[in-house]
Structure formats: C-alpha cells, structure tokens
C-alpha cells in the first residue's frame, strides 16, 4: 500500500487536475488517463489505481449531473432502467477484479484504451441532432430544449436490448478497470438506439455514479481504497473538470482528440508491454 506523503499528494492532485480537464474537454471521464498514471507511473497495484479512479468517476458523475438537472437533458427513466444492467455488470466486475492477475488486468486495459482511441478518432467530426418535435417520445424517449439550435429535440428509444447489453458490458468494464464506461454506452446509445448525442452523454454521465459505486464499495471492503489518495484525486479531478468545462469552449477539441487518441495508443502499448512481462 503506498505511503501518503506531501509530495505524493501534490503529484496525484496535479494528475487528477489534468485527467479531469482532459475528461471534460473530450467528454470522457478522466479514468482512462488516471489509472495508467497511478499503475504504470507511480507503481500502485492495479486494483488500488482502479479504486482511486472509481471514486473520481463517482464525484464527476454527481457534480455534472447536479448541474444538468432541470433541463430534461438527462433521460432519468432510461437511465434508471439501464442502471439495472450497469450496476449488475459493475458488481460482477468488482468481484472478478479481485480474482484476476494484475498482468491480465493490464492487458485488458491495453485493449480497452486502444478501443477508446479508435472510437475517439472515428467520431472526430460527428454531430447528431434529430429535430422533429411532433413524434411521441413514448415511455422511455425524451424531449429537451436544445440551446444551440433553439429548437425542441424529441426522440424515441430504439433497440432497447442493445442498450441493455452495452450497459451491462460498460458496467463490467467500469469496475474491473476503474473507468466510467461512458465511451462504450454513449456511441451505442447514439448510433444504434436513436438517442441524440447530448442526451446520450448526459444520461450516461448520470448512470456512471451508481455504476462506479457498486464497484468502489467492493474495493473499499478489500481495503484497496486509500482514503487520503482518493480524496486527493477526487479534489484534483473536480478542479480539473470545472476548469475544463469553464474554459474549454475555446479549445480546439478536434485537434485535442487526435492528440489524445495518440496518447491512448501509447498507453495501450505500455500496458501491454507491462502485462506481458
């Protein structure tokens, strides 16, 4: 278990700030950057790194969702339905993480970060807004006012079983590897289930708090959650994502996405190299 020193706290706080601001700019949680930094960079056991990262995921979800309530952007009904799947997946992931060797977890993370990089590159230019206020959204669909276009966006949910399967998988990966899992759900909800990008992202961010909690509790029970270090990372990520959201509008996101995809491929290679040793 890493000893808590003032310099370690400072390093983790800075790492959290950077991960949080990148996360806010790219629409990801910062976990995909934080876990490899803690595991490969600082040499923490993978499960300790994942546990710290999961607490930052919970904090980000609660903060972001609190600021979005009242706008109907979060689809609460769909979110609570899919949470049945994400929390179940997360519970299983938290349990299996205790049984899997660190080298295997590192290889899985390698696969996953490469996947995030590919998804990020493939979505550099995509925007998806459906403007048809006359359709009936049904029980699970939604309707919200979009600030950019000034119109009302209405949507229905298609292919619910696909959304449930993706949510279960995202929940499983989330607590196994210490990340939010939004990068799995958001593209699926958007591309296959008819949910507009902004609603898909808001609903996913809403769900990952409950998802990560189901996993984090198990890490906590195993004594893998170091309170002082989790506190540091949480505060750093909170500051970073606040800054990213506040000052991020002017940032050249397209360029940043390409750069970060390259970083993710490097992380993937490093995780693989470590996992193979």
């Amino acid at each position: 278990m890493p000893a808590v020193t003032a310099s370690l706290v400072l390093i983790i706080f800075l790492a959290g700030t950077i991960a949080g601001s990148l996360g806010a700019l790219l629409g990801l949680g910062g976990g995909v950057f934080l876990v490899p930094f803690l595991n490969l960079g600082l040499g923490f056991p993978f499960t300790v790194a994942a546990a710290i990262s999961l607490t930052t995921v919970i904090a980000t979800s609660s903060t972001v969702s609190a600021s979005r309530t009242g706008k109907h952007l979060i689809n609460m009904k769909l979110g609570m339905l899919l949470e049945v799947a994400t929390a179940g997946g997360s519970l299983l992931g938290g349990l299996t993480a205790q049984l899997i060797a660190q080298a295997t977890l590192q290889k899985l993370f390698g696969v996953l970060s490469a996947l995030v990089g590919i998804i990020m590159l493939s979505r550099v230019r995509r925007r998806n807004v459906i403007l048809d206020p006359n359709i009936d959204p049904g029980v699970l669909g939604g309707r919200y006012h979009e600030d950019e276009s000034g119109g009302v966006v209405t949507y229905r949910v298609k292919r619910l079983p696909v959304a449930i399967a993706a949510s279960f998988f995202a929940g499983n990966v989330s607590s196994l590897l210490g990340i939010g899992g939004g990068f799995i759900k958001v593209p699926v909800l958007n591309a296959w289930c008819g949910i507009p990008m902004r609603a898909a992202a808001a609903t996913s961010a809403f769900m990952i708090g409950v998802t990560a909690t189901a996993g984090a509790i198990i890490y906590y029970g195993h004594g893998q959650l170091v309170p002082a270090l989790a506190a540091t990372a949480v505060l750093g990520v909170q500051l970073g994502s606040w800054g990213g959201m506040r000052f991020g509008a002017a940032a050249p996101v397209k360029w940043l996405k390409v750069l970060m995809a390259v970083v993710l491929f490097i992380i993937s290679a490093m995780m693989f190299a470590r996992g193979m040793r």
Partner: protein
Amino acid sequence: MSPSPHHTSERELFRLEATVGLVLRAGVMLSSACLALGLVLSLSGAAAVSPAGLLLQIGILALLATPIARVVVSTAEYISERDWRFTTLTLIVLVELLASVVAALMFGRKL
C-alpha cells in the same frame, strides 16, 4: 408540443429532476468539504486514527452514499407517482448496491 397524459407529466418529471439535483449537490458538497478538510489536516501531521482520518472516511462514505441516496429518492418519487414499473426497476438497482455492500462486508473489512 402536444401533451401526452399517459406518460409521466411534465410537472412530475420536473419534481424528480429537482429532488435528484438537490441530493447530488448536497452529497458532493458534504463529501468534498470532508475530503478537503481531512486531507489538509492529515498533511499537517496527524495520525491515521484522528479527526483527519475520520473526516476522510466520512468524505469517502458520503461520496459512495450520494448515488445510493439518489436512487432511494427516485424510488420514493416513483412510489408516490404509483409508477410500479419504475419502482421495481429502482428497487432492483438498490438490491444490486446492497449486494455489493454485503460482498464488501464478507471480506471482513470495516464499512
């Protein structure tokens, strides 16, 4: 925009969002305050079992409890709306969260 009376009304949806927002905001403020204070105190040299250590534990538990509290108030809201389908779904989520608490307790650690 045509109203759809057989679905959750606009007013009920707004009330649920407001309640959920309140719970999340309160949870984040409580946990962040405890974590920040606990961290500052522990860096100024206090041992693990101390006000600092206790504040950090409370902060972590408040962080973990916030999403759970959000599901609990949603369940209560769906019960008051007599929406049994979503009452059942949110109850299943609570059972899953409870299962992870039970799993954590079975490993014999404090929680």
